[in-house]
C-alpha cells in the first residue's frame, strides 16, 4: 500500500500489528474486559468470537482509540491507539444512518480527510484514490449512488473502500457478515483476501463459528477474559466453547454435535 501519511516516529512496520497486554476495561464497576493479553503479527485475519456482551465491541473501541482502558496497554505497530490513523473501524451495519445524504464516493472520501488536512478541499488526486478504492472493492459503477440505495454487501464494501482510502493497516470489522446472503458474504471475502494479501491485518467480530473455523488464520474466543487464542482448530474445541458460552452450548448426544443457542441480535452488543 502507498504510505503518504506521515507516521509517528514509533510506528514500527516490523513490530506486531497488535500487541495487547493485560487490558482491562470497566464500566461503572462492571467488568467488560479482564486482563486480555495477545499478540497478532501483521497480515493476519483474526476472528473475534464470543457471546453477546463478551467485550468484542469494547475491545474494538479500545483499539480504535475511542475507549480508554483502566489497566494494561494496547500497541499498534509499536504505538498506542490514537497515535496514528492506521486503524480503520467498519461499524455494524445497524449502527450506521443509511438515510444520511451521501454517495458511496463521498463516504469513501471521508476516510481521507485527515490526509487532505484542515481548511482544504479534496483535490483531483484524492478523488483518484477514492475511485481506485471503490474499484478495488468492486463498486466503481455505483460510486455516485446514495449509500441508502446500496445492498447490504455493497454497504459493507463501501466502508472497506473507506478504510483503503484511509490507507489503514489494521481494520476492525464489527459483525460484517450479519444479515448478508451467501454471495454477498463471498464478495466481502474476496475484498478481505485482497487486503490481507497486501499486508493489512483484519480483526473481525463474528457470531458465525463456521466462518471462524474455515476462513480465518486465527481465532480469539472472548468472554470478558480471553478464553482461547490461536489457530481455529486449537481454539474452537468443545471445552473452550463451553467455557466461553456456558449454558448456551448444548451437546447433542448423537455424534457430539455442538449447538449454540446464543444468536446474534443486531445492536445487542451495547456494553454499558
Amino acid at each position, binding site marked *: 500500500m502507498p504510505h503518504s501519511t506521515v507516521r509517528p516516529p514509533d510506528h514500527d512496520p516490523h513490530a506486531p500489528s497488535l500487541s495487547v497486554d493485560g487490558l482491562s476495561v470497566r464500566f461503572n464497576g462492571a467488568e467488560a474486559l479482564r486482563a486480555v493479553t495477545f499478540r497478532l503479527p501483521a497480515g493476519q485475519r483474526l476472528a473475534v468470537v464470543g457471546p453477546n456482551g463478551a467485550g468484542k465491541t469494547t475491545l474494538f473501541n479500545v483499539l480504535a482509540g475511542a475507549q480508554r482502558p483502566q489497566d494494561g496497554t494496547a500497541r499498534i505497530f509499536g504505538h498506542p491507539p490514537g497515535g496514528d490513523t492506521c486503524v480503520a473501524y467498519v461499524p455494524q451495519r445497524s449502527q450506521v444512518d443509511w438515510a*444520511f445524504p451521501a454517495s458511496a464516493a463521498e463516504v469513501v472520501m471521508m476516510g481521507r480527510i485527515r490526509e487532505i488536512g484542515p481548511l482544504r478541499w479534496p483535490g483531483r488526486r484524492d478523488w483518484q484514490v477514492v475511485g481506485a478504492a471503490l474499484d478495488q472493492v468492486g463498486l466503481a459503477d455505483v460510486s455516485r449512488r*446514495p449509500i441508502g440505495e446500496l445492498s447490504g454487501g455493497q454497504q459493507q464494501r463501501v466502508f472497506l473502500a473507506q478504510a483503503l482510502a484511509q490507507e489503514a493497516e489494521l481494520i476492525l470489522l464489527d459483525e460484517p457478515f450479519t444479515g448478508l446472503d451467501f454471495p454477498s458474504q463471498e464478495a466481502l471475502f474476496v475484498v478481505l483476501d485482497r487486503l490481507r494479501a497486501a499486508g493489512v491485518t483484519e480483526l473481525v467480530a463474528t457470531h458465525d463459528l463456521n466462518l471462524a473455523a474455515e476462513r480465518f488464520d486465527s481465532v480469539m474466543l472472548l468472554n470478558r477474559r480471553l478464553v482461547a487464542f490461536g489457530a481455529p482448530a486449537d481454539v474452537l474445541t468443545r471445552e473452550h466453547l463451553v467455557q466461553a458460552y456456558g449454558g448456551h452450548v448444548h451437546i447433542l448426544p448423537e455424534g457430539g454435535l455442538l449447538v449454540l443457542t446464543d444468536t446474534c441480535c443486531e445492536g445487542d452488543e451495547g456494553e454499558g
Partner: protein
Amino acid sequence: MNPWLAWLAEPFSYPFMLRGLAAALTVGVVCPVLGAYVVLRGMAFFGDALAHIILPGVVAAFLLGWPLVSGALIVGVVAALAVGAISRRSKIKEDTAIGVVFAGCFALGIAMLSSRRGYAVDLSHILFGNLLGVSQQDVLLIAGLGLLALLAVLAFYKEFLVLSFDPLLAVTLRLPVQRLQNLMLILLAVVIVVSIQAVGVALVLAMLITPAAAASLLTRRLPIMMLVGAAIGALSAVIGLYFSYYTNLASGPAIVLTATAAFVLAFLFSRQRRTRA
C-alpha cells in the same frame, strides 16, 4: 407602472421594510445551511433549547440598550458549551439536563423583563420577533455574523460531515472531535442569535429545521440539501414578508408559516415521487 410590479415594489418603498427584508433574507439563507447538520444529527431539541436559554442575554442587552445580538451572543456561546458539557458528564439523561437549563433560563429572562412597564409588547417582540424594527446597525451585525457562520461551515465542511455521519471515524482519523463539536455548538448559537430579531425566540427552531427538513426530502446529497434549504429559506423570507405586508400579519409567524407550507409541499412531492417510482 405595471400594477403587478407596483404591487411587488410597494412594500419596499419603506426603509424599515427593506431592512427587514435584508435581515430576513440573511436568516433564511444562513439557518438552513447549519440547520442541515441539526436535522441530520437529530439536534432539533437542542437547538430549540438554546434559543430559549439565550433569552436572559437578549433581555439584558435590551434593558441596557445594547444591540440585542451582543448580549445574546455572549449568553448563547456560554450556554452552548455548558449544555454540551452537562450532557457529556452528567448522570442525568441529556434531554432532561437540557430541559432543566432551558426552562430555568427562559424563566429568568421573562422575570427580568417583567419588571418593566410595557412588558407585554417587549415580550412579544422577543418571543416572536420584531423584524420591522431592526435598525441599520442590527442589519449590519446580522449580515456580518451570518456571513461568518457560512464561512465557518464552508471551512469545516468535511470535518462536520464526518462528525455528523460517523463520530467513531472522526476518532480513528484523530480529528480534534471535542473542539469541532464545540465549534459546531458555537456556530449554532451564533445562527440562533442572528435569527432572534427576525422570527423571535419561540420560532427560531422553525428557521433552523423546517427549510432544511424540506430540502432533506428532496435530495440525497448534503451540499444540495444545504443549497435547496437556503433557497427555501430565502423564498420563505420574501414571500412571508409580502404576506405579512398585505394581510397585516406579524412578519415572523408569516415567514415561518410560508416555510411550513414549503415543507408540506416537499413532503407531498416526495411521497408522490416515491409511490410512482
